[in-house]
């Protein structure tokens, strides 16, 4: 990849541009491609949003990646909505539907047409936009607040520009938050959280049960809402990088890589090859230690402490390796704008290879033990099932999607950074193995066992990928290219994306007017897209199965709540 490629345009973009122009013609203000693979479609009227989104979804086979709202009233006189869809399957394109929403008069709040009933995956984004910007999604059936809980006043919107970051908003009258009530003889409710029994993050779960059977589950989150996006508008670009690592501590590398990528695109710079390789190695180290932790958690939750203890030993070894290589047990501080802050000299390379190979050997033995234990396998099999259609409708990502038979992976569908030259699953490169993989994907039933197996497979693949990259590290020792933070063009924007161990994370940045600042930072981690899956997965299972169904999906509360 040369520097020139960042500026040029993806070969498939022109085709999509003309398809869109043909279908919508005069209803579009413009169609243009920027940042190599982002096709931006500007609708003349916000009323065309639903039709455009449906077209991109069904005709162009786009998958909703994120919905971005930004308050550009002071600049262009309106709020701007951007619906980003990713097109994978060897295409590597993003189509971004853009529309303006005028402020309107003070008596009536600004509104935009909801697409929640057409694309259920959009429901939560719209509720978030309503809370944070005060734009009303007309037609979204769920009118409850999401991000800001009931004591937040109804007419204060944190992401509007006039809202000052440090404002301490007085508590409003407690608004009622209504959970869906299941009525009937023998149905009872179990409220759980936000403070849980284990060492985990806060969230509220409301079960409606008939005896042991869960007939409905509603999750309520955003207890860890820390105002990440608003805070980013008050920080310098290199400080936002530190913030991005702390969106969800255990996916620091993935989130900071996505952020760096977005800023690097805006700046038109490409980090040196060695830096991109090191980013990829650290991202895979992150995947391995987290998958080990999740598998250990699964083992705990089915009551098999022996397996959990063994897997946690491996996780701890990985975290020590992280520390020795990068100076942080959670891989904080790996990324820098324009490259990386840690090198992988040959002695560290050897250390990594040696350690992960031993871990892999031990891991395989533990997995064999778990697979041979019928009391573990019986618990996992057929529990917490998410069918492929549901997974598709809800827009699931990452391990959860792959376990339900959706063959999606940002590392392959939208190759970024070092992944442009890495084989994602090294043992799938012969026709026979590809066929075997297709059969395997078709067989994945979306239950806890499938997610268990997907994770096991990914640990093996990641270790192989780390080995592959470390053998082939670029000999040019350059690790950083300068990013001209002070002189970036105001309002330039770009998407950055990465595949964390949970799935695709998408970060969108728009440069601010002040030098070295952001106008808007929109983050969507995989957890935000995957949380709704838990409500579907546990239906008709028993309450005691909930903890490990939850664990098998490995969702981050902090990554969701921001």
């Amino acid at each position: 990849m040369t520097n020139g490629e960042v500026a040029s345009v993806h070969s498939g973009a022109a085709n999509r541009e003309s398809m869109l122009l043909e279908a919508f013609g005069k209803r579009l203000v413009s169609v243009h491609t920027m940042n190599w693979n982002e096709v931006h479609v500007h609708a003349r009227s916000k009323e065309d949003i639903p039709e455009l989104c449906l077209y991109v979804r069904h005709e162009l086979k786009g998958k909703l990646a994120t919905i971005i709202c930004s308050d550009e009233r002071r600049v262009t006189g309106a709020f701007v909505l951007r619906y980003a869809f990713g097109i994978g399957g060897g295409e590597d394109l993003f189509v971004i539907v853009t529309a303006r929403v005028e402020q309107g008069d003070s008596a009536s709040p600004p509104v935009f047409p909801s697409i929640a009933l057409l694309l259920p995956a959009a429901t939560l984004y719209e509720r978030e936009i309503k809370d944070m910007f005060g734009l009303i999604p007309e037609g979204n059936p769920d009118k409850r607040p999401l991000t800001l809980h009931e004591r937040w006043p109804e007419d204060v919107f944190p992401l509007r520009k006039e809202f000052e970051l440090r404002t301490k908003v007085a508590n409003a009258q407690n608004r009622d938050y209504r959970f869906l009530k299941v009525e009937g003889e023998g149905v009872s409710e179990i409220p759980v959280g936000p403070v849980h029994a284990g060492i985990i993050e806060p969230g509220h779960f409301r079960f409606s049960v008939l005896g042991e059977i869960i007939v409905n589950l509603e999750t309520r989150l955003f207890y860890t809402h820390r105002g990440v996006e608003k805070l980013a508008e008050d920080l310098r670009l290199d400080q936002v990088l530190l913030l991005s690592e702390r969106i969800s501590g255990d996916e620091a590398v993935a989130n900071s890589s996505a952020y760096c990528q977005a800023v690097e695109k805006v700046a038109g710079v490409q980090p040196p090859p060695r830096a991109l390789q090191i980013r990829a190695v650290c991202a895979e180290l992150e995947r391995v230690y987290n998958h080990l932790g999740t598998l250990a958690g699964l083992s705990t939750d089915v009551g098999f402490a022996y397996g959990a203890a063994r897997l946690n030993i491996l996780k701890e070894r990985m975290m020590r390796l992280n520390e020795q290589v990068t100076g942080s047990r959670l891989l904080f501080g790996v990324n820098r704008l324009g490259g990386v802050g840690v090198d992988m000299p040959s002695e560290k390379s050897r250390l990594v290879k040696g350690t992960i190979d031993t871990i892999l050997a031990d891991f395989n033995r533990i997995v064999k033990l778990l697979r041979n234990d019928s009391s573990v396998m019986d618990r996992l099999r057929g529990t917490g099932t998410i069918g492929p259609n549901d997974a598709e409708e809800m827009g699931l990502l990452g391990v959860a999607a792959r376990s339900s038979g959706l063959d999606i992976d940002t590392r392959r569908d939208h190759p970024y950074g070092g992944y442009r030259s890495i084989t994602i699953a090294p043992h799938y490169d012969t026709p026979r193995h590809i066929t075997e993989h297709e059969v395997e994907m078709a067989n994945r039933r979306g239950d806890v066992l499938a997610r268990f197996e997907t994770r096991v497979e990914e640990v093996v693949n990641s270790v192989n990928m780390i080995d592959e990259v470390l053998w082939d590290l670029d000999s040019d020792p350059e690790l950083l290219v300068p990013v001209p933070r002070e002189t970036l063009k105001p309002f330039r924007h770009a998407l950055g994306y990465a595949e964390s161990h949970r799935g695709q994370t998408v970060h969108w940045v728009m440069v601010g007017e002040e030098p070295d600042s952001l106008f808007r930072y929109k983050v969507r981690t995989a957890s935000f897209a995957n949380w709704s899956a838990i409500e579907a997965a546990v239906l008709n299972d028993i309450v005691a199965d909930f903890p490990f169904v939850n664990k098998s999906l490995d969702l981050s509360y902090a990554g969701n709540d921001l």
Partner: protein
Amino acid sequence: MKKKDPHHDILGDHVETDKRVLDRARSAPNFRGDVAFAKADARPLDPDLCRQVEEVCAPRAIASREVDGRFQLTLDKGRCIMCGLCEQAAPTLFEVQSGFARPVKRRADLVVTRQSDNAPYAPELSHEELGKRLSEKITKILGRSLAIREVDAGSCNGCEVEVAALNNAIYDIERFGVHFVASPRHADVLLVTGVGSRNMESALRRTYDATPDPKVVVAVGACASTGGIFRDTYATSGGIGNIVPVDVYVPGCPPRPEALLHGLLLAVDRIR
């Protein structure tokens, strides 16, 4: 395949918490732990450099001001997230050490001034040594095991990863008589992580109220101590101290397991 040494067989029945391993288990030489003032140097501070390094610090842990005509530089270890940017910007002023930042009982003790001498750096205790002391102290003061309830009041989950690590077979904190319990009603200590988010405020307060006296609150990490990088905003409280009284502060982002153990050592003192 080479026959495996039984001591390294993951499914073998050896003791993974081998004392020899843990006695050696101190932080790696390149671990980004405590940030301290670089070795004192007699020259007066350069105000420009101070202001520059102040700008660099995202959680605003560094502050400089003029006191009685002399320039003064302070570092708030409660805010510090150990990113090391200050060392890069001003290696003559700051250095990142490989030992972890020490937990303290008073918020004010986390703020250090360059003019005063750096406290002599006590050699870092290994996990095993810390655990032994903790275990003795628990037995002496409580005569039973110490019960901890962990509360996430808006963290990024980094601290949770480290708190959970205390329970793995290597740190294995239960052998020192420390037990994580499922309910605040069974707890002596509340181990609180996170910024004290607005949405967790009432839940944290109610958890505190549900904990029987005598109780001790440990603020874990930069966020719980001061708000850390998330600071004091519409969504955060600038540290859990603004919601419940705090007895011990454990700096770090996140604090490593040894630092947490050190924090518990101080916490036990506060049980009266």
